[in-house]
């Protein structure tokens, strides 16, 4: 695997696992996240283990605006001029995002899950439109069908999905590939110690799956794959039954 990758949300969970999997393939990486110090530790580790070029670029999705996104993209392409893979894995969900309580954390939830990623993906697609590149956004199974819990999170993820699909339509004559990953429960700090209805997946397995799909023409992926079936079932349940479900 040649070329270079940028991972937005690289300091933890899936983003971190992606960086390590890409490094195993010898791919140079830009690590982007809010926490610069943690990224430097990671960069040292990746360089020691895999002898690749690693660049650290801090970015705060909560405060990012259009000009900030443009500058960030410019800087990324200067640091690694063969950049051809963009992964947006950053996400934020709060315990307070429950029913009408979602209003209290709506700005932050929207900024980190939708506005920031959308600004960056738009800017990257403009910059990379003349080359073969893959832009992947990590969504969630929460976006399958709305429910009373994690309202803000699910809404911002579905907004991101629409944004990516819109970009895919706009750039359909170019060689850009846009991918959306609806990922199930993952074994991260968010889910540590929690008992969940389904098995928690190791982020490195999800990362391996995403890397395998880099050449794929498909736009929407589920991981684990059985979530596609669950999504189909959930879509079939009539409202008068669905409204009674609590999950």
């Amino acid at each position, binding site marked *: 695997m040649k070329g270079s990758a940028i991972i937005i949300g690289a*300091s*933890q969970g899936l983003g971190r696992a992606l960086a390590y999997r890409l490094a195993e393939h010898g791919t140079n990486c830009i690590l982007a996240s809010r*926490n610069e*110090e943690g990224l430097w530790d990671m960069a040292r580790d990746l360089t020691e*283990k895999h002898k690749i070029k690693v660049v650290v670029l801090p970015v705060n999705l909560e405060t990012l605006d259009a000009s900030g996104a443009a500058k960030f993209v410019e800087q990324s392409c200067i640091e690694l001029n063969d950049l051809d893979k963009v992964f947006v894995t950053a996400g934020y969900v709060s315990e307070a995002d429950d029913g009408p309580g979602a209003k209290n954390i709506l700005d932050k939830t929207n900024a980190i899950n939708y506005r920031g990623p959308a600004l960056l993906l738009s800017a990257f697609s403009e910059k990379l439109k003349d080359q073969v590149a893959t832009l992947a956004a990590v969504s969630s199974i929460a976006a399958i069908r709305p429910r009373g819990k994690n309202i803000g999170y699910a809404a911002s993820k579905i907004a991101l999905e629409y944004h990516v699909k819109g970009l895919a339509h706009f750039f359909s004559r170019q060689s850009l590939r846009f991918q959306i990953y609806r990922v199930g429960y993952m074994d991260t700090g968010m889910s*540590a*110690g929690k008992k969940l209805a389904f098995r928690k997946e190791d982020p490195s397995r999800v990362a391996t799956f995403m890397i395998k799909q880099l050449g794929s023409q498909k736009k929407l992926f589920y991981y684990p794959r059985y979530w596609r079936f669950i999504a189909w079932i959930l879509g079939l349940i009539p409202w008068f039954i669905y409204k009674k479900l609590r999950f």
Partner: protein
Amino acid sequence: MNPAISKTVLQSFDKTVSCNCYYERPGELAELQVRHDLPLIPRGGGMSYCSASALEGGLTLDMRSFNRILNFDYKLGQVKVEAGICIGELNNFLIPSGWQLPVLPGYPMITVGGCIAFNVHGKSQYKIGLFMDWIEQLTIYHPLKGELVCSATINEEIFNLTIGGMGFTGIIVNATLKLKKIAGNQVQIEARKVGNIGEAVRLMKEKAYDYDYVYSWNNFNLSGRSFGKGIVYLEKIKNGFTESAKPVKFLNRLYPPRQGPPVLNRFTTYWMCQVYYQLSRLKPVSAIQNLYTASFPIYGKEVYYHLFGKKGFREYQVIFPHQNWEQAMSSIRELIRVYKMGIALASLKFFKGKTHHISFSGEGVCLALDIPNNQTSIDFFNALDQVTIRYNGIINPSKDSRAGAALVKACYPGYEDFKRAINHYDPQRLFVSELRNRLEL
């Protein structure tokens, strides 16, 4: 993304202690959501036998996300790592460069932080000492004191207190470790059969300094002259690096622990040991193994722990001075007969050196015994305590989820000093585990 604090049940590795506690896995230090109303305790691989990383109603901090290599000085033979890195992964990284962590406990998923907090030993303690002998520098974090760098020359007192400090001084963030140069990436293993316990100790004494690692497996379920019949493993790192010996992707096969009914009891332990011995007779006396896996004798044999089922097991590890060994052994043998105990595992190693606080060390022969957990096992261990005290033995509090303050006080002259120092350093007692309460520290 902020980590969630959830409620969960954590079990000690031997499954004899369970705690309902809060649980958090921070990804960054800045994320630590320290709740000052809850006592804290960091957790690494979760392999401690003695509930060292959980407290009923306390907050356990899972530090496994802190698993990066921060610097590797190839020339000097030093590596700076975050404390949540597993020793197996670190070994995978170091061996191709001709270096190795000198002190390696038996399972690759144990973290460096756990090794420091319990000042662990490896298979050749008598030659290369304890984990503390290979630590250059530590960075620890205490929510009320902030980050602190310490070493043998900087903040010496805290450095000494953190090593073997069972996590009571704070969170070990990173550590600079000294490494041992290795001549190759394969191990020549000789498995010599011995007819009884006396023969085992004699052979181990004779060969101790000719090999890199010397330890034994003994069958304590036999009576008469065959008591302790078994295998002495003599291991030496072979010169030269070969392409065929490659790093192994270690998987944690000990988790989740099997919760089914126990398979091992007095009768099945007898047959399990017989089968193990007979199977090992079929193998060649001398074999060459990949150093990556040979460093961790438990890896690949995890089924052994699953056989204890939901009731779990108990381990007793003790060092007896050489001069008291035979008398102590004969008392233990008598107790096994009286209590009709099925011994699932008996193993010997040699130890040399002094104790540090209440870290397991001393001079003599180290015996480890595993037995299925039941009421008799507690009575048996209580009786063993008397033998330990009578023959100046030193027990390993990190392997025994039953050992109380009185026994530890009797074995470790440094107990009171350690207790005073820990309470002086952290008078608010922010870092507390089930172990700390049990040992009355």
